[in-house]
């Protein structure tokens, strides 16, 4: 326990340093102009990082695995489907696009439904081997991706540009009007989460042990599934899909903080997220002055890490 507090404090300090660096580095004369913009971006990255961490850790607890994440199972693609359908049928001038809240609400509802259906058919009844689930997730993702591509071909090219910018992850084009609602969602999620942390701990013992200890398992799973899809929807709406990010931060947190306590695991994953996003964005923008975006780098590293985890799992299974 002592060791974990020390580790969390270290992560916290690193996160603060990342934030300060990004906020003030090389700001000079352009303070009035640059500072508010940077704060906005930092806020978006923090909210996104925390939302993804929280959503991924709880999702992995209820699905009892450490490789599948909401994003890997196709949740991000679902966001693309919703936006494409909106552009396809209603167009970019429709209220569904112009009104950001309406757009956001539609995405949340679709993603929650998608998660519930996915859970009902894949996780609920029998225990499928993780590779099968993974394969199904990939197939669903590809299928939805193809659907999106197909419809995009039919969309007016000008409209298409607008759509594309929505579906491409970027921390530099944060939608400020969504930030407040995202922060509100995050706060509500944490108030709820605070009450269920110890239940989550018990749930990691598996369905039967958790039920034995008086946890209303099936109902909790539903609640948590909804919670995690809302959080993923929030982060995707805010900055776009970053598929492998949740996988990395959740697993780093498990490895770094060997504990069953969700309060610690989620806090750890959130801090790691902030360091990776804000610190990473700082490096990309100011140090390396790269033309590529952070999300591309994250997905690249995340993809490699994903393969590593798969290999490790398959070796452990032998």
């Amino acid at each position, binding site marked *: 326990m002592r060791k974990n507090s020390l580790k969390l404090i270290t992560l916290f300090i690193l996160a603060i340093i990342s934030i300060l660096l990004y906020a003030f580095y090389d700001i000079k004369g352009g303070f009035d102009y640059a500072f508010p913009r940077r704060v906005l971006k930092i806020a978006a990255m923090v909210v996104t990082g925390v939302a993804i961490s929280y959503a991924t850790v709880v999702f*992995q*607890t209820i699905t*009892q*695995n*450490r490789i599948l994440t909401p994003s890997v199972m196709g949740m991000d693609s679902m966001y693309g489907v919703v936006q494409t359908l909106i552009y396809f049928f209603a167009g970019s001038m429709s209220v569904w696009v112009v009104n950001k809240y309406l757009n956001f609400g539609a995405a949340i509802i679709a993603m929650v439904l998608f998660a519930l259906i996915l859970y009902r058919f894949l996780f609920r009844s029998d225990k499928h081997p993780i590779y099968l689930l993974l394969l199904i997730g990939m197939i669903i993702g590809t299928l939805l991706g193809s659907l999106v591509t197909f419809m995009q071909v039919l969309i007016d090219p000008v409209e298409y540009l607008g759509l594309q910018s929505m579906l491409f992850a970027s921390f530099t084009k944060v939608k400020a009007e969504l930030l407040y609602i995202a922060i509100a969602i995050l706060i509500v999620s944490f108030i709820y989460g605070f009450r269920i*942390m*110890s239940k989550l*701990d*018990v749930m*990691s*013992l*598996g*369905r*039967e*042990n958790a*039920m*034995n*200890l*008086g*946890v*209303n398992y099936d109902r909790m799973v539903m609640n948590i599934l909804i919670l995690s899809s809302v959080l993923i929807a929030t982060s995707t709406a805010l900055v776009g899909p970053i598929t492998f990010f949740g996988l990395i931060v959740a697993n780093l947190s498990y490895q770094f903080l*060997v504990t*069953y306590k969700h309060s610690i695991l989620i806090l750890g994953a959130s801090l790691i997220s902030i360091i990776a996003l804000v610190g990473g964005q700082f490096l990309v923008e100011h140090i390396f002055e790269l033309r590529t975006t952070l999300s591309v780098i994250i997905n690249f590293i995340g993809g490699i890490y994903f393969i590593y985890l798969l290999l490790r799992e398959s070796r452990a299974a032998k």
Partner: protein
Amino acid sequence: MINIKDLSKRYGKKNVVEKVSLTIQPGTITSFIGPNGAGKSTLLSMVSRLLEADTGEVLLDQNNVKKWKSDEFAKRVSILKQSNFMNVRLTVRELVSFGRYPYSKGRLTDIDEKHVDQAIDYMNLHDMEDQFIDELSGGQKQRAFIAMVIAQDTDYILLDEPLNNLDMKHSVQIMKILRKLVDELGKTVVIVLHDINFASVYSDRIVALKDGKLVKNGPTSEIINSASLREIYDMDIPVQVQNGCRICVYFNSHG
């Protein structure tokens, strides 16, 4: 008191448990025996609310178990299933502490700690209380899980083949501990056993299932005899008395 009334469960066309009625006598060890696939685990799961019955009901103190609040029920009835797969790394002590969850909701009091200590003592786990579960042998792991349900301190303890991974020494040790829980602390134990000799020597009552139906239910002495065993297992099993214990000799070198 647990009353099981006309309990049935079917999967597809198969009646896995069919109209089973029985009363679990408080303050006893009741063994569930019967061939593989007889429905023992399914019955135990329905009694402990892990599984919903299709028809019939289970009453705990005259109230349908479905009506009990989850946390209150968890203070009265505990269950340990056959296989326990976990994704987290826990030490033995952490696992046993989870047994206090219905009382503490994650914040252990001194009383909770005392129960945890006691359970660890009972199961002889002192030497390994800080070891990780996934580093233990199958038998040690099983003992740690049993310690968790002991810490849960329920009147009714349901165990599904808890001797599965255990050697003879630890099997005997566990049966003796269960006896102690019943005789000294007044607990009620329901246990699924594979080896009928453990059922014969350590239990007060035996319930035999076959093809989902209840075929025998009574005091051990009335059930451990060749005629009854033939009905349950379709085998001729001689019963010999040794040191006052009825031993079933189900090995037969002549085929």
